[in-house]
């Protein structure tokens, strides 16, 4: 799987405004809806929040990976949002989350989204890559971190 086949400037924002978990997820979902990648917004939001209730997707070093399985998509879709100030995402290390990589995959398969996140994680493993993402002013600068 190639990251560049999944991501485009239309699904990247460097100016998330919300200050709550649900707000951030909702904002990210709007990106996918605007890009016409998702249709049934309410059902997808419910799937994402349902997943968060089971186990928070806030990991470490300010990175969160909200994701969900839904019948509203046929293939994997993803978006990226940055919020420099950070949001409490109930992350594993207790740090506020700043970099959000959200994925939605079809109900029957988790593999593509796991593969996508594994590839993304290889890129943002370094402190330097995360700093570049946080300092990005445009969607293009964000994508450049992933070599797109």
């Amino acid at each position, binding site marked *: 799987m190639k990251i560049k086949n999944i991501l485009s400037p239309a699904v990247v924002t460097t100016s998330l405004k919300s200050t709550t978990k649900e707000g951030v997820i909702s904002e990210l979902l709007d990106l996918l809806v605007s890009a016409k990648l998702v249709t049934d917004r309410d059902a997808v939001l419910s799937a994402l929040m349902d997943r968060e209730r*089971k186990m928070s997707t806030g990991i470490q070093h300010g990175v969160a990976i909200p994701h969900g399985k839904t019948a509203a998509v046929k293939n994997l879709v993803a978006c990226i949002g940055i919020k420099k100030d950070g949001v409490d995402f109930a992350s594993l290390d207790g740090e506020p989350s700043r970099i959000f990589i959200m994925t939605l995959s079809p109900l029957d398969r988790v593999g593509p989204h796991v593969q996508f996140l594994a590839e993304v994680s*290889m890129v943002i493993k370094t402190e330097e890559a995360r700093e570049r993402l946080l300092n990005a002013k445009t969607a293009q600068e964000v994508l450049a971190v992933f070599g797109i």
Partner: protein
Amino acid sequence: MAHEMMLLALQLGVILVATKLNGWFFSRKLKQPKVLGELVAGMVVGPYVLGAIPLGSLGALFPPVVGTVPVSPELYGIATVGSILLLFSSGLETDLPTFLRFSGKASVVGLGGVIVSFLLGAGITVLLHPAVHSIMEPEALFLGTICTATSIGITARILGETKKISSPEGVTILAAAVLDDVISIVLLSVVVGISAVEMGGGSVAWGGIGAVALKAVGFWAVCMVAGILVAPHLTKRMKRLESLGVVAELSFGIALLLAGLSEMAGLAMIIGAYITGLSFSQTDVSAEITERVKAVGEYFIPVFFAVMGMMVDFKAVGAVLGFGILFSVIAFAGKLIGCGFPALFVGFNLKGAFRIGAGMLPRGEVTLIVAGIGLASGAIGADMFGVAVMTMLLASVAAPPLLVQAFKGGSGYRKKLEEPDAGDVVTIELDFPSERAADFLRRSLADSFRSEGFFIRTIEGSVKSWQVRKEEMVFVMKRQGSKLEFTGKREHEAFVRLMLMESLVDFQEFVDSLKSMEQPEMMGAGLLMNMFAQK
């Protein structure tokens, strides 16, 4: 034609019943490899013993056949398919990475065994056989080659049963046994080439022999490299057919094609079959192919061993019984010295060297194939074929108890077993409250991986472990008590962690759904009450 086919059906029926029952008797009651039972069954029901007795209007079930092989071409053809299936599955079961990892040590051990065994085997034939005067004569060459091959099947089976496959000695024995078979097969091609020249009259042209050797090694090397490179791409495409059965059947078709091509190139058919197996052994569907090929092999391989047993002409063997026993002892010594001595120089102590020597003793399929080809080509007679079978039988009977005894006690390796690229390998551990919980989650994880196109196969050993594989991504899942352990390459760590997390989330959902279930004791009570309910 109808009569021949009727006879073939009857022969196959008798062979299958006899080999299966005797194989069961040997493995269950005598604690010996099944292959011995199958060979003995062939000897007993074959054309030289019971098969020669006339059965009314049918005549003898195995009537004498004029020529080098004492069975009908139809039956010999079915046996040949059996030998191709056997070598194809042997190739599939060979672990190429392990083979490559210990290839240095194993090459020394394997080569030592081949050289010493060949020289001793051919030498004793020249010394004691009145009709053989030179080591270059077909009989000496064939008997030398017969001494060289080690049975991977028998060795692997014994090592597996004694849980010694992963020990330094075990790995070296297996890698060297593979190498032995490869060298023996190549040697066979050379010997067949020389024998053809010898028997056709005229002097041996060394240039011609060099060409035969080069052709054998070249065919082997080119097919190996091409096979290993092409097989993963080929299976990727074949998997699109969405039927593992079809993948296995196509791969066996390729094995038959390559076997035929080997024969066309003047080499043994088994070379092609083995290379095809070895090529597919590195793909993620190897376990699935092996499972299906083995199921078919269960019907055909006993026919091959039985037909090999049928070739033993007891009258001819009787005349060379003394030579046969001496030859067997020499063949034992060839392996014990030839493999054990070099092992001392590649990190093993005396105990380890003896284990390796003993582990290399079993003779099996390749020995029989070499002897069978020698007999079919007329290079060796029925008496020397009998000697080969006797050697195989004695070695295979003597090796298992010797090997079990040899492996008692401490390590036979001077250093600790080095882990390859330890820095590149990551282990993820998950602790559960009980063994049952760990096993439950292990099954659920296995299902998740399977639904993502991974193939899972059980790894033999003392600890329960499974290989999880999809194309180049491979990791090992182990359960030790209530702990699950995942070991794989660092580059795949993120994928494995995320997959595990997703499975745990699913598991959590399952646990939540269980909590909301009506109380199980009430359900149980309801079940019992209904048992005695009146209509």
